[in-house]
């Protein structure tokens, strides 16, 4: 295509975004009783907390952002994702991970544990090695959904090419 331009390369978000990117109630995009409460932890290749990470989630027209804390923990409240018309994908959140040490952000997805029939048909999940699929599906933990993100190593989260 004529006029095609090279995109500006990414650079790391660095360690010092905490005074700039968070905003009030940034983690909470949920409305109504159907809102999901999601909690997780961001860890590195040695299982250590990543305390300088930033997670963003997208779902339909919802957007939320959460900075990880000292334990690498993050949380979101977000309305339950819906299947989009004309889209064969199971309901899911798109998740972007930024951190010091990530020269470019990572993208993954969070699927729902109570949608096993839809998940079994989802073309993205099906394109992932069966023994790694569970890293993309949140776990029910009482009133919350647990979704840990492991950047590297054992049980490494599946990330997508962007």
């Amino acid at each position, binding site marked *: *295509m004529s*006029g*095609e*331009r*090279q*995109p*500006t*390369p*990414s*650079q*790391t*978000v*660095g*360690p*010092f*975004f905490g*005074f*700039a*990117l968070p905003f009030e*109630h*940034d983690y909470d*995009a949920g409305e109504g009783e159907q809102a999901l409460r999601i909690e997780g932890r961001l860890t*590195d*290749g*040695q299982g*250590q907390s*990543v305390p*300088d990470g930033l997670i*963003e989630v*997208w*779902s*339909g027209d919802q*957007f*939320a952002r959460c900075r990880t804390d000292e334990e690498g923990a993050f949380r979101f409240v977000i309305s339950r994702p819906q299947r989009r018309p004309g889209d064969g*994908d199971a309901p899911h959140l*798109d998740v*972007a991970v*930024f951190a*010091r*040490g*990530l*020269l*470019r*952000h*990572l993208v993954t997805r969070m699927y729902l544990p109570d949608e096993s029939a839809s998940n079994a048909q989802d*073309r*993205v999940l099906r*394109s*992932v090695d069966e023994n*790694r699929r569970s890293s993309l599906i949140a776990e029910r933990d009482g009133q919350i959904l647990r979704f840990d993100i492991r*950047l*590297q*190593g054992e049980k*490494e*989260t*599946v*990330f*997508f*090419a*962007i």
Partner: protein
Amino acid sequence: MGEPPYLYPDYRATVLRAPSQRLVRLPEEWFETSAGPVFGRIPISPSDSDLTRQHAGDPLGERIIVGGQVLDSDGRPVSGAIVEVWQANAAGRYIDPADEHPAPIDPNFTGAGRCLTDEQGRYRFVTIKPGAYPWANHLNAWRPAHIHFSVFGPTIGSRLVTQMYFPGDPLLAMDPILQSVPDQRGREMLVAKFDLDSTVPIWALGYRWDIVVRGRNSVPRGDLG
């Protein structure tokens, strides 16, 4: 695509944070989704684009204007894009409590701003030139002066977080974060140009920095390793 690799050992923090497994391909539509999320929850007021007017007094340092155009890789201006910036002060110190560099905090400078691009995709910030600062990556490591940018384009595939550098800085050649970009053209794209046209006489130097986010025709097709 000119993007840096996830694993780049010269930047030490990548070693335990880069995924070791092959990245998985997403359906092409993912990159083309036109109805992106609503980012209206991110609060933006007109005063957020002038980082020199957020406190009672003037910040110390060299006042500058940084502006340019946000385009997509298909060459179209991106209007209504949210642009977020953050930076160190003129002494090379971030207001962030995590920054332990023994340089002074400026009580008149926070170093964070936001704006929306106009109908031609243009953005403009008034700020002060950030200072270089040391970091612990290797012996005598110094980050070149830079401003962090976060851009929300029209699709989730166009999300971009990057850094803008200043022309003529001798630290650029030895900065592993900039040098992680594999091609010279890509590295050059991260360096702003001094711009006499946007320089305001007797007030502030102008720098121009255009930003290209991924467009709808730019889907990763090559090696996904």
